[in-house]
């Protein structure tokens, strides 16, 4: 807010407005061109329904994996003092800044049929990840996990160990203290991290298409379907974009409002 007795300098306001326009104009353009009258028809088209199904499975399973693996990881990063702690933290955050296509390439060469780990998965268990729904889930988890971990780790650090000490003198073993005190006391951040991770998984494109390909009904998620439709059926691409935009806005409103975060 502008202090009432001081003027905002014009040299700051002009670039600020341009910045705002860069974000706002594409959204307005999308909404202006959206096929509102045929939205329902577009979104119930069998190809789109398939993609919605794949996207729901991939994003929900991925968010669940973020919770089950990311919560202990966030706890370990916040509580365990390690010499290489900063390096480990940087590695966990890397997918946030890494181009997703690089992530997908890395996954392919690590977990592909001939990859470092993939060849053993294939030989011993007959598991092949590339070009499967499981592969799409893995790609989404790779990019979404850091969003969950950084959100929850920050909360655990901020909450400190005071309550865990209170639990310990009350007779709670460390695991019990984690489950009965640490987790419930940080639940708002856990839910916020989960929403961010889910939204990121839902929007994942680059790593998915590189590692899991673009197979209808198996790995073709909504972003992939949008990209595909752009060539042949722009109306469909616009309709799916409106759907994804609505979901993203919903997550944002829920995070900024008091639904998810105190």
């Amino acid at each position, binding site marked *: 807010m502008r202090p009432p007795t001081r003027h905002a300098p014009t040299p700051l306001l002009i670039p600020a407005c341009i910045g705002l326009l860069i974000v706002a104009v594409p959204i307005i353009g999308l909404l202006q061109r959206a096929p509102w009258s045929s939205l329902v028809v577009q979104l119930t088209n069998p190809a789109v329904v398939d993609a919605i199904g794949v996207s729901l499975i991939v994003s929900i399973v991925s968010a669940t994996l973020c919770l089950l693996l990311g919560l202990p990881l966030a706890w370990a990063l916040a509580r365990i003092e390690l010499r290489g702690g900063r390096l480990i933290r940087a590695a966990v955050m890397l997918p946030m800044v890494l181009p997703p296509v690089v992530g997908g390439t890395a996954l392919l060469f690590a977990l592909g049929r001939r990859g470092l780990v993939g060849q053993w998965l294939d030989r011993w268990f007959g598991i092949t990840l590339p070009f499967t729904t499981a592969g799409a889930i893995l790609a989404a988890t790779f990019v979404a996990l850091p969003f969950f971990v950084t959100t929850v780790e920050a909360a655990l650090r901020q909450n400190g160990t005071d*309550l865990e*000490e209170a*639990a310990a*003198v*009350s007779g*709670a073993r460390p695991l019990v*203290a984690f489950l009965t005190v640490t987790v419930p*006391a940080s*639940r708002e951040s856990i839910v916020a991290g989960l929403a961010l991770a889910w939204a990121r998984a839902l929007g994942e494109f680059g790593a998915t298409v590189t590692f899991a390909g673009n197979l209808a009904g198996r790995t073709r998620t909504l972003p992939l379907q949008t990209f595909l439709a752009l060539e042949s059926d722009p109306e469909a691409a616009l309709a799916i974009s409106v759907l994804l935009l609505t979901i993203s806005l919903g997550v944002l409103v829920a995070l900024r409002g008091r639904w998810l975060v105190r």
Partner: protein
Amino acid sequence: MTIIISGRIRRGDLDLQLDLELPPGLTAIVGPNGAGKTTILRLIAGLEALDEGTLTINERVFDGPSTGVFVPAEERQLAMVFQDHRLLPHLNALDNVAYPRRRRGEDRSTARDHAAAALHSVGADALAALRPHSLSGGQSQRVAIARAVAADPTVLLLDEPLASVDPEGRPLLRKLFRSSPAIYTVWVTHDSHDADLADCLVSVSAGEIRQTEQT
């Protein structure tokens, strides 16, 4: 039957050389801020470990760095009232007080019955259903005291437990500490009235620690 702390702990600027033998009953620890009173409680609680020496309670070694013995806090059967209360934010007052009994495996309704009795003993019956964020400082301190008392500890550790309680409420709680069924009650206080109630007085200042028996 004693708590013996004989050893040394260094934490940042603090360097405490301890040679204490606390008898059963009420011990008061007095001294200026930052002298290490809370650190003594945290050592007994198992939230800090000695750098050298040993800590024994009733002849059992709880902390002995030279022999590698360290009994973690959750196995020491004690209770502590923290200076900053540390109630669990997601539980109401009743379930906060029931928490230590639940951790010992008591079923929910029995633990709640004991918790209700403990809340009554500190004059906080009316607070049972409230969450910590809606309690005043004095109310939350009473609930923290109830939680420690309800745990039926062998050692009751009190870190300035009356600091935010209003003056009218203090006599009841002093009486409660004085008559506590815990074998050892160790009470950090700034108030000389509190110290007068103690069987044993420990004064900590500038790294020097003196212990006197009182009659």
